[in-house]
C-alpha cells in the first residue's frame, strides 16, 4: 500500500500559542485514520493544514506525494474536506447545494447528476433534499455535508469531527456511511474526533494527539494490547495521564 498522507515535524504557531509542536503521522492509501485527542490538542489545525487552508510554520505535509503548500492546487483536486462546524448555504435547497458543489468537479451535466444521485443515497434525505437548507435540523445538515464530502469519491476525505453534535440515530447513520464508503470505494479517510469509542469502531489506525504532538499511534487493537487497556479511552488515559 502506498502512502496517502505524510506529516513530518509539523509545527504551527498562532502568535505566541503553539498549536502543533512537531506532529508526525503517516496514513496508508485506503486507510481510515483517526486523530484523537482532547479539545485544543491540535487535531483541527493538523486537518486544516492538510486541507491547504493553513500554512505550517515549519515541517511538511504531503498528500499522495504532493506538498500541501507548494502544490496546493493538485492537493485540492484530490481531497474533500468536511470542517467540524461546517454549514451549507441556507437559502439553497439541499439539491441545489449538492449540484453547486458537484459542478466544481466536472462540467458534464450527466456526471453532475450522478454525483448528486450518489450524495442523495449517502445522505438518505430523500425528498427533503428539495427543501431549503435553512429548514434542516442539525443532523440532517450534517448528513448532507457528509454526503457532499463523499459523493465525489475523493482520493482523500478529511473529516473533522464528522459526528459533531449529532444524536445517536444520526451518529450511527453517519458512522455507517463512512465505514461502508471507505470499504466500497477505497477512499482514504483522515478524521478527527474526541469520541474515542467511535474512533475505535471506525478507524484502522489512530494517532493520539496531546499538546500538538502525537503521543502514540497504531491500530486500536495494538494500542489496547500495548497499554493493557479495555478501550481507547483507557489507552488515552494511560498515555496522557488523566486515568
Amino acid at each position, binding site marked *: 500500500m502506498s502512502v496517502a498522507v505524510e506529516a513530518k515535524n509539523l509545527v504551527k504557531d*498562532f*502568535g*505566541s*500559542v503553539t498549536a502543533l509542536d512537531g506532529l508526525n503521522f503517516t496514513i496508508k492509501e485506503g486507510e481510515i485514520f483517526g486523530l484523537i485527542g482532547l479539545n485544543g490538542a491540535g487535531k483541527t489545525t493538523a486537518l*486544516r493544514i492538510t*486541507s*491547504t*487552508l*493553513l*500554512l505550517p510554520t515549519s515541517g511538511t505535509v504531503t498528500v499522495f506525494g504532493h506538498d500541501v503548500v507548494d502544490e496546493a*492546487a493538485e492537493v*485540492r*483536486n484530490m*481531497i*474533500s*474536506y*468536511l*470542517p467540524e*462546524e*461546517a*454549514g*451549507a*448555504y*441556507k*437559502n*439553497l435547497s439541499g439539491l*441545489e447545494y449538492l449540484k*453547486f*458543489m458537484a*459542478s*466544481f*468537479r466536472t*462540467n458534464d451535466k450527466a456526471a453532475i447528476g450522478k454525483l448528486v444521485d450518489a450524495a442523495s443515497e449517502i445522505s438518505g434525505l430523500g425528498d427533503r433534499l428539495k427543501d*431549503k437548507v435553512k429548514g434542516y435540523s442539525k443532523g440532517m445538515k450534517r448528513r448532507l*455535508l457528509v454526503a*457532499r464530502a463523499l459523493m465525489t469519491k475523493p482520493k482523500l476525505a478529511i473529516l473533522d469531527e464528522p459526528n459533531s453534535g449529532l444524536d445517536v440515530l444520526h451518529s450511527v447513520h453517519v458512522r455507517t456511511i463512512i465505514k461502508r464508503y471507505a470499504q466500497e470505494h477505497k477512499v482514504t479517510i483522515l478524521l478527527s474526533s474526541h469520541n474515542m469509542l467511535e474512533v475505535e469502531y471506525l478507524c484502522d489506525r489512530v494517532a493520539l494527539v496531546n499538546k500538538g504532538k502525537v503521543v502514540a499511534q497504531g491500530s486500536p487493537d495494538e494500542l489496547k494490547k500495548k497499554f493493557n487497556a479495555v478501550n481507547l479511552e483507557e489507552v488515552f488515559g494511560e498515555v496522557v495521564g488523566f486515568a
Partner: protein
Amino acid sequence: MLNDLMNIILKEIKELVRDPKVLLPMIIIPLVMFPLMGFAIQTSMETAQQSIGETSIALIDQDEGSFALSLQAFMTANNFSVTHLDNISVEDALLQVQDSNLSSLIIIPSGFSVNITKGKTADITVYTPFRGGGIAESTRSSTVNTLLNIFESGILDQRIREGFPESNATQILNPIKSEDKSIVKGKSADVSPDVLFGLMLSQTTIMPVGMITLLIFAMQLAATAVASEKEEKTLETLLTLPINRTMILAGKLTGSIIVALVGAVAYLIGFSYYMNSFMGISSNITIDLAAIGLAPSLASYIILGVSLFMALLSALALAISLSVFAEDVRGAQALVGPLSILFVVPMIFTMFTNINALPFPLSIILLAIPFTHPMLAANVSFTGNYVGAIGGIAYMAIFTIIVLYVAAKLFGTEKILTAKLKFQRRIKNIPRD
C-alpha cells in the same frame, strides 16, 4: 475556469436574492415605499389645490362703502364663496368659522372706503382658523392674502392713473427692467442663471443620491457575501474546492454588482416616481439644453458610466478587503458602514460648491477620495471638464487595482480565515485562551 466563475456568480445571486434581509430593504421596500410616499404627497397636494379653487370665506362688513362692495365683488369674481355674518358679534363669528369649513373671516371696519378715498391707509382684519390641517390649510390662508394684495395693487394702479394721467402705471412702478441672461461656455444664453443653477442643483442632488445608494448597496452586499460564508461556516469548504481563489473573489464581486444594480434600479424607479409626484404639481420650466450647449453628449454619458463602474468596483474591493477581518455579517456591516462618510462628504461639497474653489489642501483631500470623481463626472456636461473626469477614472482604476490586489492576496492566503480585528480583546485586555 469560466464555468467555476458562473457557478459562483449564480450561487451568489440565488443566496442574496433569496435572503429576506437583502430582498426586503434593497429591492421590495424602495419599489413600494417611494411610490407610496409619492402617492401620499401627490394626493394631499391635489386635495390642497382643489380646496384652493373652492375657498369659502366669512365676511363682516361694518363699512358698507364702495370699496368694501368692490372687494366683495372682486372675491366673488375670483371664485370665492362669501358668507355674510353681519348680524352677529365678532366673538360669535370666530366660533362659527372655527367650527365650519370656512377658510377665513374678513372684517372690514367702518371707515374702510372713506380712508381709501382720502388716500389714507385703510385697515382690514383677516382671521384664519388654525385646525392643524397642514399644507392645504396654509395654502388656503395664503390664497386669501394673495387676493387682497391683488386688490390693493388695483387701487394703487387707479391712484397712479388719476395722479399721472399721461403715464403708464406699470412703467412708473417698474422704472428699471432687468433682463437676466447667462454666459455658457463663453456664449450668451437666453436663460437666467438662477434657472441653470436650479437645473444643475437638481442634477447634483439626484445623481449623488442615486450613486450613493448604489455604492452603499453594493458594499453591504459584498461585505455580506464574504462574512456570511464565515458566519454560516461555508468558507472553509469553499476554499478547499479545486478552484482558483481569485475566481471565488471575482464571483462574489460580480454577484454583488448584479444584485446591487437590480437594487439600484428598484431604488431609482421608486425615487423617480416619488420625484415625479412633485414635478407633476409644480410648474415645469422647459429649457432647450442643446441650444445653449448644455445637453449631455454621448461622451458625457460614457464618462459618467465608466466613472460610476470604477467607483462601484473600488467600493466592492474595499468592502471585501474589510469584510475579511470580520467574523460575521454584523461585524462586516459594522466595518463597512463608516465608509459611507467617503460618499457623503464629497456629495455635500459637490452639491454646495465647486471643489476647485476650495482651499488647496481640502480640494486635494476630496480628490483623493475615489468616490468624489463620479460625482464630478455627473456634471461634466455642465463644466466641460472632460480631462479632469478622465483623470478621475484613471485614478479610480489605480485605486481599484491596488485594493483588488490586496483583496486577492487576503483571499489567497490563510489570512482569510485567521485575520480578525480584536478591538474588545485590546480594550479589555482579556488573555488568550
